[in-house]
């Protein structure tokens, strides 16, 4: 089945009812996407489908045919949001971090802290208490605004 994965066209053979999460981790060998609860409660498995954050544990694989899927690996290893999560100590055990970052990518322009909280309302972190996560994302958006709004800026 054909879809776009992190910007590249791919053809992956997997059962249509398989969870997108499993296909990403096993068939595509992209293990940055984590399984937390398996019931859409924790957001650890968040990926973007056509730009919208979704829980990949609840997506039948067949539904991403011809869609654009983006996982944490799509950011590369040098994204400013990754650095800010480290610098602000927005990550401790790290299981929630890829999902947090993917959910943060969908935040609109000039967000307030409340906008950021709402955008991350579907992501649970049991280590950090969220403050450092919100701070990292807020700083990233301030930097991006200065840099002209590019997603990789």
């Amino acid at each position: 089945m054909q879809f776009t994965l992190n910007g590249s066209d791919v053809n992956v053979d997997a059962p249509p009812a398989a969870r997108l999460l499993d296909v990403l981790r096993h068939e595509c060998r992209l293990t940055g996407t984590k399984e937390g609860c398996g019931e859409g409660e924790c957001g650890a498995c968040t990926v973007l489908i056509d730009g919208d954050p979704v829980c990949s544990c609840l997506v039948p694989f067949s539904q991403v045919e011809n869609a654009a899927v983006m996982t944490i690996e799509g950011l590369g290893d040098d994204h400013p949001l990754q650095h800010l999560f480290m610098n602000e100590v927005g990550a401790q055990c790290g299981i929630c971090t890829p999902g947090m970052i993917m959910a943060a990518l969908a935040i609109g322009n000039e967000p307030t802290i409340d906008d950021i909280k709402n955008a991350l309302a579907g992501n649970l972190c049991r280590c950090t208490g969220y403050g450092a996560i919100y701070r990292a994302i807020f700083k990233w958006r301030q930097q991006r605004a200065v840099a002209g709004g590019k997603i990789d800026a």
Partner: protein
Amino acid sequence: MRTAVAELGVRRARSLTEALDIMREEIRTPIAGATDVYVGLNFGTLVPRRFVDIWGISELRRIDVRDGQLVIGALTTYMDAIRSPHVASRLPMLVDAGRQVGGPQIQNRGTIGGNIANASPAGDSLPVLLAADATLVVRNFATERRMPLAQFFTGYRTTVLRPDELIVAIEVPPVTGKQWFRKVGTRAAQAISKIVIAGVRGPSPRLALGSVAPTVVRAHETERLLGMDAIDDAAAALANEIQPIDDLRSTADYRRRVAVNLLRRFWRDTA
């Protein structure tokens, strides 16, 4: 962890006609955003079965105003409803409800039609649609039928929907009066309601509640008393009119007290 979900059969329908033809041939459970079905499968609470995937049927994912009614396609997601100018102007309490469903990930995938078909007494959009006097449009390969949403639910997670029928749309007549919605859960997001309530304060007040009975319910006697602005009598009536239970999310006593408090809050906020 790889689950057995992968082994299940799915047929994808690209149009409503194709979906209804598939459902005429054999019994298949419709899936769209899968936010309820895949939770049930992942945890073994749903017996594995064959599915028909209706997620891609774009003709069911529209929000229109037709003949003075707001017509919500069954595959409208909560996020679609939140962003719709038609919903914002005609049924703002559905926007409030949509924002409190799960988090953005669930709002991007969960559908209004799915919330109805799932028939949970805790469904967040259901009190809104019930208080709005919504009509449900369901169809099989041969015919279409309409029914008030109140007649759709027959008991705890049971409905009048036949195995070959799909919910295709929800029709909402103009709502006169101030709309009000409130959900009480353990936390603001990602919570299943302990109690959920929608009210309309117009010439004939309307009140619908979830998580207080086997189905979502209208509180008709409470509404009648509210119509006479008898809030104390209405509060007493509401406590008798609902049948909450103790469960893992809350207790019957808590739900009854909070329902009455929310009723008074509704009446104050919309005065």
